[in-house]
């Protein structure tokens, strides 16, 4: 109908279209920085820190031993955040395990009576090598990126595989 009487309706239609365009324009203009702001942590590379675990020469064979390390919390705060490191020695081999459960990221602990790592949240079980052997966990315990300087162990605040 607009086409048959372009002169009579064009002013009104122009105003309608204009109002809608202005509203859409303002919405898009506002949405760009806001969405970018909300998503920005996804594109930020997390800062990598290294922390000294300590001398692991005294860690007994077949006995997962817990160390506590401290990393800068990151972002704007100057505070530190602590993390647990389980060092598992088996002869000359050793593993540097996180105590983060692969199921819901609760804190697992070595349960000596079971000879397994146990997650208190949903009963996940891992063997001494950190392999998931029972309960809901879908993956093994994550391992820290680490290096050994003589007998002194250092870990980074990241895992060998993303969790």
């Amino acid at each position, binding site marked *: 109908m607009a086409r048959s009487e372009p002169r009579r309706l064009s002013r009104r239609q122009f105003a309608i279209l204009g109002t809608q365009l202005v509203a859409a324009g303002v919405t898009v203009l506002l949405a760009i920085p806001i969405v970018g702001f909300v998503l920005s942590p996804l594109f930020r590379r997390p800062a990598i820190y290294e922390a000294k675990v300590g001398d692991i020469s005294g860690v007994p064979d077949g006995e997962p031993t817990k160390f506590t390390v401290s990393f800068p919390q990151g972002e704007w705060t100057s505070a530190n*955040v*602590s993390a*647990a490191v389980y060092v598992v020695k088996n002869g000359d081999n050793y593993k540097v395990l996180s105590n983060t459960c692969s*199921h819901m990221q609760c*804190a697992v602990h070595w349960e000596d009576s079971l000879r397994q790592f146990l997650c208190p949240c949903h009963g996940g079980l891992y063997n001494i090598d950190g392999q998931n052997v029972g309960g809901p966990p879908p993956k093994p315990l994550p391992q820290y990126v680490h290096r050994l300087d003589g007998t002194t162990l250092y870990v980074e605040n990241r895992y060998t595989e993303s969790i």
Partner: protein
Amino acid sequence: MGRRLDATYNWLDERAALRSLVRKGLYEAVPVRGAWFYTLGSATLVLILLQLVTGIFLTLLYVPSVTEAWASLQFLKQHDVFGSIVRGIHLWSAYILLFVIGLHMVRTFFSGSYKRPRELNWVTGVILFVLVLGMAITGAFLPWDQAAYWTAVVVTNIPAYTPFIGSFVRALWRGGDAMGPITLVRTFGIHVWLLPAILFPLIGVHLALLRKHGEFGSYVNYRGAFRARECVDVPPPPAQRPIEPPYPAVPTDEMWAVPLQTEDFYPYQTFKDGLVSVVLVVVVFVLAVAIGAPLEAIADPSTTSYVPVPEWFFLPLDQLLLLVPQQLIPLILVLPVGGVVLLLGLPFIDRGPERNPFERPAVMVPGAFAVVFVVILTLLGSGRLFNQ
């Protein structure tokens, strides 16, 4: 004096249409039978308003920062008796709110009040229910004690099992792959601004729709064929419900169903509403003073001795987390999301005119199963925690 008040009222009415607003708000005709069951909605509203007031005042002290949040609440606990009571009210009225909003929903489900023309009352109600759950779960993060921290870890990790975009959703909430300072600030922002900014306008819509269609009540308020009348495809007449007394004693054929016996919302229903609400508020106060809100040790991500105990309203989902084997973990998302989708779709699935719950086995039986399922999960979860 009275004349001057009248004059002021008239002056305001002329400019702000006060009179029709008050009439519509207070002198609505509401069904008489079963009125005590219809107090649950207003009780929900009172508890939400209690949350709003105490929540606003809690921000006068609480600091949403990983280094300060716990310390600020510890200070409150040790040095501020009244502040502790305010926090206690905020916690206990949240607990009771979750319970009452559940009852409100069950009542509506049971009476079939969600049927035409009130489908959107139900849909907004379901969204409000989900928003209140969101408020509860984000609120649980904020003390940043051990309980809060491990709740936050588990809850933010659940969306990570969404296919394809899971870890992005988790990082979006946490502000990174790992828990950190941004996690708490974001959750605080969601709790005090984002969710309330949606919640409160939606409450307005929910109430406006209630007034628009009038309160249904339940099938006992209607006679014979009129029990079904509201769902029959007849065009609504221009004036369905007179906003001023006297109300028609007997529903006429031209109208959508009008309850057999009605009375004014004010003061008859408001009196019952008030009594129920005041009992709940007193219970909240007693619990807030006698028990208060707990604060555990400060969050310690390196703990190997802490046993997390989920909030009671999180128990069914937590028990599901325990029961679902590793191959089927996405079920922990499918079941709650599917449940909400089914609830949203309920008025469009159950479209028959029948309102009597005993004549609607096709919805009542699955509904009862769902409730029993959630209750069993809760019992299993609490039993497990008591045995630890």
